[in-house]
């Protein structure tokens, strides 16, 4: 599967509320049962093994703690347009 996007989660900021894990359409977010942050929460993490994240940013939209930075592969169409404009 072609990789389209990824997220970086600030795990110290995360309070483990699970809203992102439940909202993720690809079901690639989960709470990290092996990690406790300084606040005592199991923070969310991305399950990366299958590269299913599309970078849709739904997780970041619902995150109450602004923990999630979302990256997405530029769409080919946008790359073409950018190249057309800037060479």
């Amino acid at each position: 599967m072609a990789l389209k996007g990824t997220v970086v989660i600030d795990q110290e900021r995360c309070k483990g509320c699970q809203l992102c894990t439940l909202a993720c359409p690809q079901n690639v977010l989960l709470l990290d049962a092996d990690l406790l942050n300084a606040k005592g929460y199991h923070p969310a993490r991305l399950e990366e093994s299958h590269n299913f994240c599309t970078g849709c940013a739904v997780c970041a939209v619902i995150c109450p703690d602004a923990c999630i930075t979302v990256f997405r592969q530029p769409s080919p169409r946008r790359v073409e347009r950018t190249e057309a404009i800037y060479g």
Partner: protein
Amino acid sequence: MIPAAELERVYERPESLTALHTNYCPGCTHGVAHRLVAEALDELELREQTILVAPVGCAVFAYEYFNLDGCEAAHGRAPAMATGIKRLLPDRTVLTYQGDGDLASIGIAEIIHAAARGEPITTIFVNNAIYGMTGGQMAPTSLPNQRTTSSPSGRDVALTGQPLRVSEMLATLPGAAYIVRRSLHDPANIRKAKKAILTAIQVQQRGLGFSMVELLSTCPTNWGMTPAEALTWVKDHMLSIYPLGDYKVSDAARELSA
């Protein structure tokens, strides 16, 4: 994992928020509301021209969480304080951020008169139907039969009246230019809330009058629910009492929100 350099950064913490961790409970939608306001200010490039008036309530530290000039109002008085600021600095963007105890109970006079004057300020009204900071007491916005620590058998409307619908009430005032109710219970509604906040701030920038976005929000801790259950409770119980919609959009404001 693909190298981040090849990827486009499509979402990150807005500049108008500080890096400080908030004191909100896990899953509390105050954090979402903060982020939306900050994103709107970033997009409108208003961070350096904005003054935030924080309330008394769980958002009492809002002035620390926003990367803005800010001040701390007495309980319910944020609209009066914002009036004082806006009258002295009419070219700045002045926001009040208030909960339902603050705005709909102790501060109801100040919000009505600010709206009646058409004060060109923007109010973010976070309605979660309960007093959060003091530990879950009944608010004027609590739902009929809602159990709180001061209505342990459920809100008895025969004794305490029906929930106060602030957006509907303020919409009757000519000074109000933009009064809408949105909800934060799912990503689609959060996106609509963001758009409304953008419009409300633009209404202020154009000097069209008073603007307010009411945001239906959660209080997982005092409702005794998980954050996900709380979002469902908003959808299942609050939406019928507090219907979403545009309660007042003046003609001039309509051009902005189109």
